[in-house]
């Protein structure tokens, strides 16, 4: 019985924190928001040098061959610093999908490039109203001799502007059913698509709309089973849920730290405001939220890595609790900071906006709770 990160994982935590700090910490998202988009590319190279882009890639492709638990500390640190970029999508969607379903050619092409920081991937899932359901995959891929021709539009694609490859669920058959959905690897360098930024109040996480108009994609870019990509997608979504939880836990961690620091230093009525129980006890509640979010997330990551019987339930519960806890603590942090919390200058709002941007990504808290209820056989 041991429920903690192991030494290697703890080392990841320390070194990621140091690396991100060396890059400016919260200055990274600040500069990114202010238009300095290069900082993302720069940071990405650094991540590759540190080995963070190969953590869960097989050793035969140059990675460390670790499981989802090893991503936890790295993602927490990224969450603490509101790091932009498709790290979760690359590591927790693309890598698991390629490892599980990729052809040898695909693995050889993509995995080393991921490890080396040469290729970022993201997921282009949403269409129409943004709901996640088989019927909402309407982007068609008509099969030709050597390629598919894609027509349709994907929206809400995180960091689709900088991603080198998109993982795109398309419809190769059926109309509304789960059957007929396939996953394609669409390389930006080969594909003719129109990218348009969608304006988001979370400016450290760009989201884009991509229009496919008679876009050709070679047949060997099919990832996983034809027509049965929906199942593979769910597989990846479990990984991504856990990755998002870890990022959110990192965000909560920092938010609690900020509130606590402010509570100890901000003076009003001749007292540090953390002496007043309305502030003091609220910070405790926030700390409790952190504790529970982290525990549920650790367990979900463990369950994922070990393919535990209760994996789906554990992930759903962690996701629901953590999404809500991040919104709650980030909101309380604004209130505790008073007027200062309402300013652009203070960092409180960065966390609040990130919390909202992740809140419903890949499903709402209500959705997750219902998934858990189903898993419990209710």
């Amino acid at each position, binding site marked *: 019985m041991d429920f903690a990160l192991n030494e290697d994982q703890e080392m990841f935590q320390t070194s990621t924190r140091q690396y991100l700090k060396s890059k400016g910490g919260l200055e990274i998202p600040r500069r990114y928001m202010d238009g300095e988009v290069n900082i993302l590319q720069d940071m990405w190279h650094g991540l590759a040098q540190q080995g963070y882009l190969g953590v869960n890639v097989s050793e035969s492709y140059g990675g460390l061959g670790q499981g989802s638990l090893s991503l936890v500390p790295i993602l927490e640190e990224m969450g603490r610093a509101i790091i932009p970029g498709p790290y979760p999508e690359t590591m927790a969607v693309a890598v698991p999908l390629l490892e599980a379903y990729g052809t040898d050619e695909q693995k050889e092409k993509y995995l080393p490039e991921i490890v080396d920081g040469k290729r970022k991937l993201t997921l282009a899932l949403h269409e129409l*109203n943004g709901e996640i359901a088989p019927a909402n995959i309407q982007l068609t891929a008509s099969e030709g001799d050597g390629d598919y021709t894609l027509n349709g539009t994907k929206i809400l694609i995180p960091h689709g502007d900088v991603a080198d490859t998109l993982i795109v669920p398309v419809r190769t058959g059926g109309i509304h059913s789960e059957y007929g959905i396939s996953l394609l690897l669409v390389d930006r360098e080969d594909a003719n698509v129109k990218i348009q930024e969608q304006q988001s109040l979370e400016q450290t996480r760009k989201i884009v709309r991509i229009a496919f108009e008679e876009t050709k994609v070679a047949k060997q870019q099919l990832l996983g089973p034809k027509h049965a990509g929906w199942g593979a997608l769910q597989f990846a979504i479990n990984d991504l849920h856990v990755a998002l939880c870890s990022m959110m836990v990192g965000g909560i961690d920092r938010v609690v730290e900020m509130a606590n620091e402010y509570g100890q230093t901000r003076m009003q009525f*001749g007292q540090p405001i953390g002496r007043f129980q309305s502030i003091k006890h609220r910070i405790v509640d926030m700390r409790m939220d952190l504790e529970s979010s982290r525990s549920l997330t650790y367990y979900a990551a463990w369950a994922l890595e070990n393919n535990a019987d209760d994996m789906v339930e554990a992930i759903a519960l962690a996701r629901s609790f953590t999404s809500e806890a991040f919104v709650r603590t980030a909101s309380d942090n604004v209130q505790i900071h008073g*007027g200062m919390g*309402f300013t652009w200058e203070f960092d409180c709002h960065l966390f609040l906006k990130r919390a909202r941007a992740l809140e419903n990504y890949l499903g709402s*808290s209500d959705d997750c709770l219902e998934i858990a209820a189903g898993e419990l056989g209710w």
Partner: protein
Amino acid sequence: MDFSYSATEKAFQEELRAWLETNLPTGWMDGKRTLPKDEKEKGIFLRDWQRKLYEGKWAGISWPKEYGGREASLIEQVIYEQEMVRVSAPPVLNIIGTAMVGPTLLQIGTEEQKNRYVHKILNGEEIWCQGYSEPNAGSDLAAIQTRAEKKGDRWVINGQKVWTSYAHYADQCFLLARTDNSGKKHNGITAFLVDMNQEGVETKPIRSIDDNPIFNEMFFTDAIAYDEDIVGEINEGWKVSLILLSHERVGVARRTFAIQKQFEELVDLAKTLQKNGRSLIKDPIVRQNLTRFRARSRALLMNYYRHLTNIIRTGRPGPEGSMDKMASSELAKEMYAYAMTLSGSGNVLWKEDAIVSSDWQENYLRSFGFTIEGGTSEIQKNIIAERMLGLPKDVKY
């Protein structure tokens, strides 16, 4: 109990409605309600609206007739707020002047002050702001450090204010400054009327989390005022500020009616948004959350009516205002937050990309100010606890 309006009150309501039909900016009644983005243009737009209100005698309805008011009753003031919320009327640019500074000067100002300022408040010739909070005096307002020192016939003012609405439009400032440091911090404060159009006054917009420059910092560097600019007595500014505040009571009405409207909009949002081809309003959990909001917003309205009845009966506003303020700001915040949650994967899209209307996202961010400005919810709870319930002050000084 009687929820109806008298014939006079109804006539008042109809007159206002008719006036609004004719005088609201073009297209406003049909829903074209965007203010100019540019702050300067916005200022011109709002000054125009202020002047129209003045010309229609709708700028300061509670004011004495001799000063351009209507001497409206409390109920009429409530009807006024209700109607303004109903049509989402543009904000009143000189609200600090018309709702607070003007009435305060009429109550305790000198004859000179009345002659000099009051008329120009109502017609919008001079826009006012309020210089209260400071970086180290937020919840603890009495801790202000901005100093006014008498040098010859001049008061020389130095210090910094924050969270000042309208400062970038303002011609005049109702300022609290410290004139004596020797006693308790609630003493030694004096209220000044300060000309904003002088060299010693600088304003700087504060960039807020919704990226709107609605608040400002103000820097006073050897700014000048004179004896005749003092309201009330020297060192009695704390008392003056309470008098000023007592004129803010109808602001609660505006917030209360606004909440009712916000609730209806939230319901519309839930009707518009779909999941699995079904309107969200049909989801049992959404229905329940919305009916809970409904109960709370109705409770706010009914609480307000009860408090209003009490004011009418006793002639005095009580600490109930703090209850209404706290509850309405918390509820508004929660309802905007719920709109974000309901909006699913596109909840953060805004501006032209908003899935329904960017108002939701903007109001959501803006709502974080509601429970902070004008006294945080924590401060309101202390006021309720101490003034209404007789509970002890939480720290002894």
